[in-house]
């Protein structure tokens, strides 16, 4: 018998004694399914687009995530330029993507691309990792990205500053919507890593005092890109 069969065997044996099923949350007391789901229990999110953006922005403030809203590629370039100067970037790490391809060269800095498989030690020297993402989530102020949409696993966590560029159409209201999107986008062929990022890295392990930048990026910047009308 394989190890797997041994353990499964013990499980089946143990489960022969049945435990009665708990009353379903999504059922009223007379047994009718109420249709309520996770969405109805989690924190409420407005259903109008501006309300969703405002919720996202508010969460960013609470999380100490830098958040900017720009319209069109020129303004995006301008914002990146501003950050380059204020943060003193010398080396950028990023990945191939239509938007990134069009704005990165204009920054006038050397940049490493994930697709070129740079050495870890080189990515480590980068001042910033600039990536795209799969979605932003208003409910929690989070970024949803994967190894496929954001240049691999290390790019968004190794450099001390992480900048995410997202289209406004990528802003989703809540967590259930994020998981629906994952299913729709990847179907059965998920990337090996999916991550929900909520704020810059932090720890409270020393006397419960908040310190940012424990191991992951100390600074997290999200730039929301609207298409020009």
């Amino acid at each position: 018998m394989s190890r797997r069969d041994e353990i499964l065997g013990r499980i089946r044996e143990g489960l022969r004694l049945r435990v009665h099923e708990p009353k379903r949350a999504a059922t009223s007391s007379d047994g009718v399914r109420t249709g309520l789901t996770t969405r109805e229990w989690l924190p409420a999110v407005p259903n109008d687009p501006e309300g969703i953006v405002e919720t996202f922005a508010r969460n960013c403030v609470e999380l100490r995530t830098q958040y900017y809203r720009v319209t069109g590629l020129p303004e995006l370039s301008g914002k990146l330029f501003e950050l380059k100067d204020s943060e003193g970037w010398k080396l950028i790490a990023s990945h191939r993507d239509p938007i990134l391809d069009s704005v990165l060269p204009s920054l006038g800095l050397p940049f490493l691309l994930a697709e070129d498989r740079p050495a870890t030690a080189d990515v480590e020297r980068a001042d910033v990792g600039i990536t795209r993402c799969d979605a932003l989530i208003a409910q929690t102020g989070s970024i949803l990205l994967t190894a496929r949409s954001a240049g691999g696993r290390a790019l968004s966590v190794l450099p001390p500053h992480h900048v995410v560029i997202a289209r406004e159409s990528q802003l989703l209201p809540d967590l259930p919507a994020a998981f629906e999107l994952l299913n729709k986008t990847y179907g059965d062929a998920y990337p090996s890593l999916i991550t929900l990022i909520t704020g810059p890295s932090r720890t409270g392990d020393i006397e419960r005092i908040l310190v940012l930048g424990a191991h992951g990026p100390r600074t997290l910047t999200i730039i929301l890109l609207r298409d020009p009308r």
Partner: protein
Amino acid sequence: MSSIFESQFRASATKLTADLRHRSLIRKALKGYEKSRDEKKARFQDWEAARQAAAETKWEAINHLDKYLSEFADNLARRGAKVFWASTAEEARNYILNLAREKQAKTIIKSKTMTSEEIHLNEVLAKAGYEVVESDLGEFIVQLRDEAPYHLVFPAMHLTRNEISHLFHEKLGSPETDNPEELTMTVRRDMRIRYCKADIGISGANFAVAETGMIAITENEGNARLTTSLPKIHVALLGIEKVLPKLSDLALFLPMLATVGTGQQLTCYNSMIGGPRQPGETDGPEEFHVILLDNRRTHLLADAEQRDALHCIRCGACLNVCPIFRNVGGQTYGTTYQGPIGSVITPHLRGLRDWKHLSFASSLCGACTEACPVKIDLHHHLLQNRRNAVVLGTGKLDRIAFRGFAFLVNHPGVFGVAVKAGRLVQRLHRLIASSKIDPLRAWTASREAPVIAKESFRQYWKSRHK
């Protein structure tokens, strides 16, 4: 007859309950957490319904564990991960030792996993000559001090910044400082080098998603992301009970875990890992090994009365509300899993005879059951453990005492005599109260004894009806 574990528990509890500095330090640490937790809970539209849904989901997972575990393992294998089914701690450790030897590994980096503490992995790896480093700041601190984690979510909760500064100065040669940020940066710099150098990264998992064959890791620091991204080999160690049926279940569990675990809406990083580097991906481990650990969990599963203890998501909510935990601290328990959940499951995982005392060291206030996000019937399980201990044949003195009491109660005449005797004894007792020969010393060492009333209620009632 108390076990050596009970004696150790009592000794540690006696020391820490008298330590007022410790009491106020823990109270202060938990007050901050309580405020954040209550604030995040209040944002839920219906926290109680969420608890019910979470309980229901875990019921489904555990009561069909064979089905979901198989699904999980098969989906992982499809994407090139190696799944190892470990019945015992030893099998899990040997798998990792063999792997390290085969790959000629030298350094191993770990992110936080209580399961590795459970199987005593670090000691065994260190003995075999491997350099093992804990990357989580709290775990790193207690590793340097060579002590057990104080709390399952906040391992270094019991230390002040000065104690940590002194520790780093001694072990890492860093300058003394009372600035938490500087202390954190010292570790950040040290760890960077290790992440890049490490041959194997070992992580735990908070959840195991059956539908898509992914492990989910919840953290704030980013050390787990680095541990599972940079080394060529990633090993994930998890208990078989971590299973969730669907990926979308995480939409409920991740915010609930963060809310009661740390008082956040979500922790900084929630990562779902479903395989080694896939074709077309630019980086990531070449190999992904997943170790599914039984280690007597199936024993707990077979106890239908307490099966729901396997629903636990290791959030620490029960520890945070437990007045026993707050007064004796996590290390006093002497086990991997502390607090109410630890007291409930340790007898199943390590034996009732040796660990029953944890179930007795409780006032059964029920705050744990109220706090549990998946509605485990914690305090009632403690009562069941007590009953099981008696059935096992322990507590003979208690049984004799209660049989005696039952006799008195069922024979009112004798009871009346006992009461009269009690009044006499009370007068004598006053002479020796709180002294070394006082048989009621367990009470009177710290408290005044109650006084038997001159006229009992019975006597009053009788006199009314004369």
